[in-house]
């Protein structure tokens, strides 16, 4: 239902997403956090982070799955890199903890079984009450390939693996029509088997039979978010993506990139939501953002494909106010989660809300509703209806 009250003269939906990975997006974030990083990733820390994001008024949290680092040496003498919990399970843990925050894990499509992905994401939708999404990734890492004994995948094939996996997911989510569970005591039938369908996906490298092992997700179809550029024109035209994540080298170039992406989409008859990507370092507790970033960079280099904002909360508010009139939403990647989230929640989000630039936040809103998407009927429902 696209019933979100949008401010006049605004193109945007006013969605703010927050990347919640570990201590922050900067590789030295865990060493810069005020609280000592725990030896093991802790559930309490995750609980704290998602609750902080929700109470700050973010619409969605994303959970990164950066895959395996490429180790050149057989033995690491140094303490290991930041431990990584599986992204989808972190999102699932957050399900019963939160009420309004949409939960969007990043899931690789190259080295993960499509059937597992589809059923795990459908399960996430159940445990979150319809607040789940899927941030599609396609790993090009040799380490990820070696972990499962496969050859690395590059170029066009990455795009195809992602498109195939999305197609399998979408077919499996539709493979139970909404009313397939009938619980008809008189006939003894729990299921109406006419409302279950084989996915019968035949790809270049594999086939998947179906149906899913779990009834249709609460949202019918989970919203699928994809980095712009990963899918080819054909997949986009087929409706593979519900939202594209748009990156530019600098904050100044973001507007142009959004406009270009929108123009490129104009010809294919689809209008996925556009979400702008932004790294964020803010002034905090008497330290300038520049000084904070210098200190972090002296510990580790921060390479990211995203535009990076470094400055005051007021400046960021102005930037976001502009971007939110062009894009449907912005995903923020705080350098150090606890430090930058504090500033965002205290200064930035309240001001954006005061200016009516943000979509309202309410309990039990589905991610589809936030994105202005209606709940689709199963693709197989039409066939069943026509047969009758």
């Amino acid at each position, binding site marked *: 239902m696209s019933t979100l009250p949008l401010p006049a003269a605004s193109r945007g939906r006013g969605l703010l997403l927050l990347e919640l990975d570990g201590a922050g997006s900067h590789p030295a974030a865990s060493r810069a956090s005020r609280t000592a990083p725990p*030896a*093991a*990733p802790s*559930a309490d820390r*995750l*609980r704290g982070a998602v609750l902080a994001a929700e109470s700050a008024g973010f619409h969605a949290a994303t959970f990164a799955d950066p895959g*395996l*680092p490429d*180790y050149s040496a*057989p*033995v*690491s003498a*140094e*303490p*290991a890199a930041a*431990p*990584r*919990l*599986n992204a*989808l*399970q*972190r999102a*699932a*843990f*957050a*399900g*019963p903890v939160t009420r309004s925050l949409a939960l969007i894990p990043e899931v690789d499509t190259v*080295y*993960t*079984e*499509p*059937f*597992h992905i589809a*059923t*795990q994401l*459908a*399960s996430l939708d*159940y*445990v*979150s009450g319809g607040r789940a999404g899927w941030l599609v990734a396609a790993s090009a890492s040799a380490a990820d390939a*070696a*972990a*499962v*004994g496969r050859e690395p995948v590059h170029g066009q094939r990455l795009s195809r693996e992602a498109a195939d996996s999305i197609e399998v997911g979408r077919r499996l989510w539709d493979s*139970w029509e909404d009313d397939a*569970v009938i*619980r008809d005591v008189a*006939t*003894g039938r*729990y*299921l109406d*088997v006419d409302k*279950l369908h084989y996915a019968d996906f035949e790809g270049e*490298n*594999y*086939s*998947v*039979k179906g149906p899913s*092992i*779990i009834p249709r997700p609460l949202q019918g179809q989970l919203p699928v978010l994809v980095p712009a550029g990963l899918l080819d024109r054909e997949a986009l035209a087929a409706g593979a993506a519900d939202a594209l994540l748009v990156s530019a080298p600098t904050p100044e170039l973001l507007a142009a990139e959004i406009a270009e992406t929108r123009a490129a989409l104009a010809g294919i008859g689809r209008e996925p939501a556009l979400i702008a990507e932004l790294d964020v370092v803010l002034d905090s507790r008497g330290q300038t953002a520049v000084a904070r970033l210098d200190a972090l960079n002296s510990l580790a280099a921060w390479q990211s494909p995203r535009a990076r904002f470094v400055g005051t909360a007021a400046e960021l508010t102005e930037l976001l106010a502009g971007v939110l009139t062009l894009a449907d939403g912005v995903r923020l990647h705080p350098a150090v989660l606890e430090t930058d989230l504090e500033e965002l929640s205290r200064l930035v989000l309240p001001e954006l809300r005061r200016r009516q630039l943000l979509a309202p936040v309410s309990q039990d809103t589905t991610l589809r509703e936030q994105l202005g998407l209606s709940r689709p009927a199963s693709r197989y429902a039409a066939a069943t209806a026509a047969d009758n």
Partner: protein
Amino acid sequence: MSHSIHPATEFTPSGQLQLGVFFQGVNSGTVWKAADSGSQTEFESFRRIAQTAERGLFAAFFLGEGLRLREHLGRPHALDVAGRPDAQTALAALAAVTTNVGLVATQNTTYNDPADLAHRLSTLDLLSGGRAAWNIVTTDNAWTGANFRRGGYLDHADRYTHAEAFVETAKRIWDAWDESGAVRRVRHTGKHYSVDVTPRLPRSAQYRPVLFQAGDSPEGRDFAARQADVIFSAHPQLDDALDFRRDIVARTLKAGRGANDVKIMPASEFILAATPQEALEKKAWVRSLQIGPQQAIAYLEQFWGRELQGYDPDGPLPDIDPAVEETSETRGSGFHGAKARQLADQWRAEAKEKGLSIRQFVSARTSRGDSTFTGSYTEVADRLAEYARTGAVDGFNISPWLIPTGLDEIVNHLVPELQERGIYPTEYAGTTLRENLGLAVPVRPAADVTGAESASAAARV
């Protein structure tokens, strides 16, 4: 693998029982036709059962795994409960709303990758503060494989060699991150797959996930005796359970482990009431809802391989012969493989001798534990005391026949009776599943087979 303590050669009954709950999700065991039967898929059902289990100091909450929907005569099975969430996704959510109960995920070794599954199980273990377990199952059928990239590539004979290589690789991955944060690379190249991975997660509060295993063939038992912490057995009757215990202790010792190292928790169904008479009436009612007339006919159809709708459920077994050579009990749950004609003759003779109708015969065949755990609370508690005294089992995995309230009477009435008899915990022994099951913490191997680390770095945790 070396043990710092010499394995005990004598089995010693602990005199205690533990309980687990197996949320089956699918099949005819769940009485969905009852008025107070709730959703099989809503998270609320899982939360309700898990929190009730925790209130009753249950050691573990189990989820089964579905990889392909069961079929009946070539179509999804209309009569039984079907549809369940992915185990580890649901358990990760339950980790957020529980604090003590163990979270056991049934996961197949054939359609997963060792590095990926080990990582996901570690995640669950860390999110739950050391309460995760893996119920190891194996499959070899191409029919399930039709949902996976790998397909049906595994020979039946390779089922356990494949599973064992898988489990050993997972253990090496869990062992590879030591307490100082140093990590070693794990490489395995074998017949079935190759793995080259540097683990991303440290050990949990219980070192690594507890391993459950449910195989019952001689190969399955040996596999469990070598690798598992707990056997999820199919032997709930006392005499049978004692035989099974003796067999497992012998196999465990042969594998170089201690006599008490592998716990046994059979699957079971409890039907309880205030009086013995009420319990018997309740059992008849439960059975009539589990195996109604349609289910009884459908059950036979699985073995006959043909439609038997014309037969009276309250009459004798079908006089026509099976249409198939070999039986394949509802596809997806594994092939039965018995000679169909032989089985039909055997069943007809048995039903005739005992004077059983189709419904009665099928009901008797499909009921678990039969009358052992049907009775008044005090009766069943007395019977369970005998299991504790003899050490026949370490506990039971209860499959509730009603979702989501099926544990209520067990927790409210049976647990206090067990506690009064001194055979059931009155509080959780600790915060990890390993502590609550009375399992020793694994010893970290001195060095990985890659030999990358010195023995001095190994330590007992």
